[in-house]
């Protein structure tokens, strides 16, 4: 009798084990589906105030490998020429008139509004987060992600991933205290060419900014490789040279 029960239990678990999802591989696939490891892109950031007033920024971004990101502000005129650099947990801001790069932190925001520096200079999720668990729910995977170190901007992410597209539809970000910091909504699947098909719009809101909303629109996203020297402080004033 006991042996029969055990066999029945094993028979029940086998399909579950066979279909178990490797969370780390899934997260890496999400990363690659969002962007190539090295790429250039243009983004428009729109901060929308409760009264509907908007402030827009246009940013040219480049990324190389796991942890090197650089951005250049193209608009508005008051911010044009500013650039940021990220090397792992190190971040710098270059303002043309100030001249020398200043260290900044991931939770500050060079644009104001709901997006912070970590959102604007985001690394691959698999680089910054461990997968605690994966659930399947209504055609989605729900990934529970825990920051690998205390330096990461959000301590925990709950990521909803479309099972078919293997792309995120929603990410909820929490602080180490458990406080909800913001929710990111991925919308408008767009074909960027070169095999890149991903959400062209990311919206975010936060209980810390009641009534405010920020939107990030993507354009010109393409795979591109850059020399390592592009991701050094000395190049921050020369970012414009990368644009053709």
């Amino acid at each position, binding site marked *: 009798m006991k042996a029969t029960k055990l066999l029945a239990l094993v028979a029940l678990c086998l399909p579950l084990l066979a279909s178990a999802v490797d969370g780390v591989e899934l997260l890496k696939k999400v990363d690659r589906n969002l962007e190539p490891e090295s790429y250039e892109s*243009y*983004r*428009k950031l*729109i*901060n*929308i*105030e409760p*009264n*509907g*007033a*908007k*402030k*827009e920024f*246009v940013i040219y971004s480049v990324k190389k490998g796991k942890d090197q990101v650089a951005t250049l502000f*193209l608009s*508005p*005129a*008051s911010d*044009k*020429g500013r650039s940021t650099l990220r*090397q792992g*947990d*190190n971040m710098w801001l270059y303002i043309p*008139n*100030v*001249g*020398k790069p200043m*260290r900044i*932190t991931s*939770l*500050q*925001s060079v644009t*104001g*509004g709901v997006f912070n520096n970590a959102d604007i200079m985001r690394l691959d999720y698999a680089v910054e987060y461990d997968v605690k668990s994966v659930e399947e729910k209504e055609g989605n995977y729900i990934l529970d992600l825990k920051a690998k170190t*205390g*330096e990461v901007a959000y301590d925990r992410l709950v990521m909803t991933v479309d099972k078919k597209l293997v792309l995120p539809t929603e990410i909820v970000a929490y602080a180490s205290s458990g406080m909800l910091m913001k929710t990111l909504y991925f919308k408008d699947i767009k074909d960027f060419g070169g095999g890149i098909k991903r959400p062209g*719009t990311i919206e975010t809101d936060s209980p810390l*900014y*009641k009534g*405010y909303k920020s*939107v990030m*629109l*993507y*354009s*010109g996203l393409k795979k591109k490789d*850059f*020399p*390592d*020297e*592009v*991701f*050094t*402080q*000395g*190049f921050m004033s*020369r970012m*414009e*040279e990368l*644009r*053709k």
Partner: protein
Amino acid sequence: MVRKRSVIPAKAGVRAVGRNQEMNSALLICTVALMLAAPAVADDFTFDASEFDKKTVEFSGYLEQKEEGLKMRSDSPGYKLAYPGETQRHHLLRNTTTLELSGKLNLDPVVVDMRAQAFHADDQLITTSDRGTVMEGGVRWSAGPGLTVDAGKRVQRWGKGYAWSPVGFIERPKDASDPQSSREGFVMASAEWTKSLDGPVSAVGLSGFVVPTDGSSLNKDFGVERDLNPAAKLYLLAWDTDIDFLWRGQGAKPQSFGFDFSRNITSALEVHGEWARFRDAPHNTVSAAGVTGQTESDATSWLLGLRYLTQNEVTWIVEYYRNGNGYDARELDDYYTFLDKALAGGAAPALADKARAVARSGYGRVNPGTDYVYAKASVSEPFGWVYGSAALTAMTSLEDRSWQLVPEVSYTGFNNVELRARAFVLHGASHTEFGEKPASRRIEVYARFFF
């Protein structure tokens, strides 16, 4: 810069200046009102990157209108130096219009650029104007991502200090009261090589400079001797720490060398420092009786600072600055005693001329003392005020215990407009640095329109 006394007769001048100030104030108020009344634009979530294709020729700039109210120390030597021969005034209103224009010609791999500034300042005593100064401009050739060659007028920003930079060997000194203000460069030629590496030293950069002086007009603010004035900088990003080794050769200025560093200890705490050694640095002095002298000796200056972001989003910047070639309290007391005599009513005109020459020889620097502490607490978006920021800055001269306190607010919520208001409160006993500045209180408001 053309600095001229107003040619308008005194009373008419006051009326004319008053009208100008009213017009400028009205301009400022109207512009702000128009911005406040600007309607919210309907949602339009479209974006085409081709609108932002790189242009061969680019122009940009800003127009700034600044209004200042000053409470003067009309019996102070500082006032008498700034406004020689003028009657005493307890209050002064000043308005300043500044226009900065930048242009760039992109001819990959060569870039030609220029930034020029003009201003006109009016107060009830003096009209100051500058029809145009090239702040920066030149030609840069990028031989590759890691190698550039540059020639022209350039502003180098050496050092990691926020308020002061003792290792700023080939640049004009910062104004600690407004460290991010625009500065004028020196004519120089430079080459910079950068290389990324694997391992704990992840980047290395080497730069060489010459800052030529011809003994007359070329870089005359740098020095008056004919020399090439070589300088060099070695940059390392090692163990997540920015490190620079800096050197300026003997020339129009004495040889000097030093280093700086900056490192994030945590994501919220950054520490930085600078150390500079000046060989045979000249030190000009004046006795209370007016006897001038000069000594030459090695001097060491250094700075240690931190930047800390608290849980409630307040950024603290705290710096200690040791100015090895500065004037101690006794030397400053002698200087002010001499100024009291030289600028007193009835003193010989030659004495007043001598007082101005002594001020130019070193005492007239923005911060001429030896030991300073700077602390700034700033908060972005205080009380949910998006795009707003508020700050309180304190600076004290430890040697004479005089100090300056500056609360400020700024707002960048209107597209391409920056609004900023600051109040300066200066305090110190007689014959102390902040106790002898020409104004004891100052309120300034400015609007800067970028285009």
